[in-house]
């Protein structure tokens, strides 16, 4: 158990110093997975044999003093909407139950090049559509801090696994807060990179102008390490930015003296839980103490973000998910008469209700006679939301606010009310619409003992500064060291 509570950077040091063998670490890890994952339910599939083979190879390399990668021997869990060659990638959907990708996503290729060990695929809301990981077709993941509560979503399997010490790090994905919100609810660190910072090649598409893959980790330094590995230009994704990747660990301890921190009034209004408000207020005091100047700012179009998101994301999803037709891969319904019946039955039997709801909403918004009223209008308001950020970033270094308006809610509490569920993402969605990066770090606990997340947002491609600001807080506090009782 003790080994598994270390951070990735700590465990890497031990592996490189030959204090521990990767194969022993992997053995201990799978023992704990077998012990706690029947409760937490974070994994959809384990990659045990390949993980042991990879571990042996790394041990061999280290024994022979062969150079190893940046993530040598570090066990990593992967959200199950990221393609892994030879390992089923289901998107937690019945329609991809038997889908074994014939290629690796760009980020998986990078992890392998740096000698990381892929330990398994984690649960998510079907096609990443949801905020609680309850919309999975296979299982409901539980919050390690309270098994009756949701872990958040859609990357809830990844954040729960890291919180439960059954993965040292994980990859998640975001379209509208799906890394930051579950990271907040599970008490771990989650980062959404600038749109274009990380290649989307091999990420099963949901909303192509919003989707980004990002790291989930136990602390800010591990997050920086993982981002350094997965970021960068990839010729297979033409929206991937051709901007050099710094070593995000370098200069991370630079502090926040003289930094101007913007606090948006719109993020502290109605609907914000008292415990969350208190924790965020205390965090702002700490930043002040560290030498940052706190200034009030306004992002006046925040109230429209969720409405814009549900048009834009679902319009893009309705188009992206048209590819699931039962022809080339995935589920095909049997005993059908013609091709149209095959499409209809395969999609109706293969997709769950939330996915159907969103595809229909997207098709409605794009359909003849409604395009101007919905998609075009939403795209214009999206620009207003982006301009809000452009304006405030002329005057400040970062924005600090809550990640989620509430701590983890109970399983079943919001599942029958889609609109209420959508509003869980009210503080995270604006960053996806604008393309800016964001991070959630642990900043306290509610009276019921549930984790609370602090969100930091910066301008595009300022991940290094964002991590530096996050680390300044982490260094002063010990919320990131808390462990759930499992």
């Amino acid at each position, binding site marked *: 158990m003790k080994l598994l509570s270390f951070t990735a950077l700590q465990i890497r040091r031990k592996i490189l110093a030959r204090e521990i063998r990767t194969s022993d670490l992997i053995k201990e890890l799978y023992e704990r997975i077998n012990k706690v994952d029947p409760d937490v339910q974070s994994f959809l599939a384990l990659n045990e044999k390949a993980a042991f083979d990879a571990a042996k190879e790394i041990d061999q390399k280290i024994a022979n003093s062969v150079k190893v990668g940046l993530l040598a021997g570090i066990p990593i869990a992967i959200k199950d909407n990221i393609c892994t060659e030879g390992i089923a990638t289901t998107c937690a959907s019945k329609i991809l139950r038997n889908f074994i990708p014939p290629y690796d996503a760009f980020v998986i290729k990078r992890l392998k090049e740096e000698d990381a060990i892929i330990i398994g695929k984690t649960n998510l809301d079907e096609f990443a559509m949801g905020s609680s990981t309850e919309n999975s077709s296979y299982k409901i993941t539980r919050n390690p801090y309270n098994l009756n509560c949701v872990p958040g979503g859609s990357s809830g399997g990844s954040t729960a696994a890291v919180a439960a010490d059954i993965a040292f790090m994980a990859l998640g994905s975001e379209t509208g807060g799906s890394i930051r919100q579950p990271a907040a609810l599970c008490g771990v660190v989650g980062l959404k990179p600038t749109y274009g910072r990380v290649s989307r090649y091999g990420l099963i598409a949901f909303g192509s*102008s919003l989707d980004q893959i990002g790291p989930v980790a136990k602390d800010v330094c591990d997050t920086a390490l993982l981002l350094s590995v997965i970021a960068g230009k990839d010729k297979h994704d033409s929206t991937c930015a051709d901007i050099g990747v710094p070593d995000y660990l370098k200069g991370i301890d630079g502090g926040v003296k003289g930094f101007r921190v913007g606090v948006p009034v719109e993020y502290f209004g109605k609907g914000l839980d008292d415990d969350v408000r208190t924790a965020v207020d205390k965090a702002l005091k700490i930043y002040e103490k560290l030498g940052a100047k706190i200034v009030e700012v306004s992002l006046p179009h925040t109230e429209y973000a969720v409405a814009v998101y*549900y048009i834009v994301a679902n319009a893009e999803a309705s188009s992206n998910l048209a590819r699931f037709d039962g022809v080339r891969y995935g589920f095909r319904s049997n005993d059908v008469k013609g091709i149209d019946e095959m499409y209809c039955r395969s999609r109706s039997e293969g997709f769950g209700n939330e996915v159907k*709801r969103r595809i229909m909403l997207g098709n409605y918004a794009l359909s003849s006679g409604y395009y101007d009223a919905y998609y075009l209008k939403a795209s214009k308001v999206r620009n207003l939301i982006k301009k809000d950020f452009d304006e405030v970033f002329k005057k400040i270094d970062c924005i600090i606010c809550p990640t989620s308006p509430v701590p983890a809610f109970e399983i079943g509490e919001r599942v029958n009310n889609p609109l209420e569920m959508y509003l869980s993402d009210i503080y995270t969605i604006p960053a996806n619409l604008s393309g800016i990066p964001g991070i959630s770090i642990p900043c306290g606990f509610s009276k019921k003992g549930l984790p609370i997340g602090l969100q930091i947002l910066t301008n595009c491609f300022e991940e290094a500064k964002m991590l530096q600001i996050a680390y300044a807080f982490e260094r002063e506090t010990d919320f990131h060291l808390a462990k759930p009782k499992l």
Partner: protein
Amino acid sequence: MSINIKDIEYIASLSKFKLNDDEKMVFVGQLSEVLSYIEKLNKPDTENVMPLVHPLSMTNVFRDDKQEESISRENVQFIAPAVMGAFFKVPKVIE
């Protein structure tokens, strides 16, 4: 904005979904609720605002017109529901 059963049937046909009557009723209620929430987008003035369809301003990305290796046909057909020779096999297309 509320939508009715006929609208749901039309959107379902665009989406290639076959819904039963109970499902149609549930979706009418839920989508109406979401659409009435979305009506708030009529409030902000967007008269002179350009639509933003992509967060980064990017230009075309070009590459050399050079042949590269891709995933083999065998590996692609391996995961298909039905194949025949070099083809994907599907039910009757023309009645």
